[in-house]
């Protein structure tokens, strides 16, 4: 797959959507349709709180087109920073960061990403190098799921127990 496939003007999906794709397609569908859960918001609040405490001096919530980056550091290369609560969804976080890098690359900006896990006192670096295909596949899949007339059938897993959509999915 060539990386010419997605001109920047077609990249309308958000980082959260890429993230949710790797958590659960059902959740992605509901979220993309604006059907969100209030616990989700509390969770976001907690994230924001952690964020504000710890990264008070950074350039925060930087909006670039359809993506919103937690914060950015400018040095020799631009660093995209994402703050996450726990590591159980690591793959999803990584793909979200990759998507940002892919997006920025389209704009001609070379960057690398750093995932922060303040509660665990850990960071993880992510670079795009050669992973364009992976992210393009993910973008395609997000678009496919969003275009479905009804949400994909939920699949019960351990994730569901902590998911804000639990009641909606299983009632």
């Amino acid at each position, binding site marked *: 797959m060539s990386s010419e496939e997605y001109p920047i003007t077609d990249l309308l999906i958000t980082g959260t959507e890429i993230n949710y794709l790797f958590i659960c397609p059902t959740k992605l569908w509901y979220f993309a*349709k*604006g*059907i*969100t859960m*209030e616990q989700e918001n509390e969770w976001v609040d907690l994230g924001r709180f952690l964020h504000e405490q710890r990264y008070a001096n950074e350039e925060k919530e930087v909006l670039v087109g359809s993506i919103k980056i937690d914060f950015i550091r400018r040095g020799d290369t631009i660093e995209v920073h994402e703050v996450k609560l726990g590591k159980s969804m690591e793959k999803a976080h990584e793909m979200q960061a990759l998507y940002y890098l892919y997006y920025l690359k389209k704009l001609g900006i070379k960057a690398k990403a750093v995932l922060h896990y303040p509660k665990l006192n850990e960071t993880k670096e992510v670079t795009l190098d050669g992973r364009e295909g992976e992210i393009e596949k993910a973008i395609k899949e997000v678009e496919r799921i969003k275009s479905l*007339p*009804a*949400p994909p059938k939920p699949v019960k897993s351990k994730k569901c127990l902590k998911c804000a959509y*639990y*009641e*909606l999915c*299983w*009632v």
Partner: protein
Amino acid sequence: MRKRSLTLLSDGTLFRRENTLYFENERGRKPLAVEGIYDIYIYGHVTITSQALHYLAQKGISVHFFNHYGHYDGSFYPRESLNSGDLVIRQAEHYLDREKRLKLARLFVRGSALNMERNLRRWKVNDGFSEELRELLEELEGARKITEVMNVEARIREAYYSRWDGHLPEGFKIVKRTRRPPENEMNALISFLNSRLYATIVSELYNTQLVPTVSYLHEPGERRFSLALDLSEIFKPIVADRLATRLVTKRMLSKEHFREELNGVLLTKEGMKKVLSEYEKELTKSVKHPELKRNVTKKRLIRLEAYKLIKHLVGVKEYEPLVAWF
């Protein structure tokens, strides 16, 4: 922190100073932790400052107002923060498509009726109701117009009331269900509870992406949250009717808790207090949910009903109204 409903029965003023909300009356000034408030129910004569309203709007807290009789007057429903264009369209689609609308309307009536049946069995006054109901439900399935659905509903209700009375103590018979103004104690009590239940449902809908004014059994109204009326059909028997019955059979309420006015019977302040505290208790009671395999409060069941409706609208699963298993 679990958010709670705040009920104001006494007269006073609700205002904001800095980041605190206060309620002040002749007994003093009380700070209210806004973060812990889910919604507010006002029965007293309360003055609210616009700053307080701004603050409540910002926090997404609805405020429901009740009149002298304890009947619902209206709500301060903050600008909706949860929106889903997609869901709005589907809600409208299910209204505009006659078959789809009829289906939902029938389901609300059916759920309501089965909950009434459940009550009569519990109270051991079923007395042929089930047989009568089977026939009425069959008629319901054949109903081709909303007016026909409504008509069947009225007949079910009538059959229900006539038996329910058999379980109520002397002096608290419903006899004839009257609404505004209520003619006797039991009618006053049921109306009072139904009003509160309706407002509770409005609050729950506020916390979903459902548009409260697009409904199926009741005509969508500009000035009332008619979807809350639809949902209240399901919950009236299992919340309001049961509670009303318990309050009078267990003698928690007596004639002294009512007073007669020119326009009918109403609960006294003491009576309202008693009823509202029992109502809160009732809604925070948990039951084990058979599908979710979790304990959920009775209040949460209202939210779950809204979720089931959302799933019906987006085409995941056909709506099946809650029939009390408890």
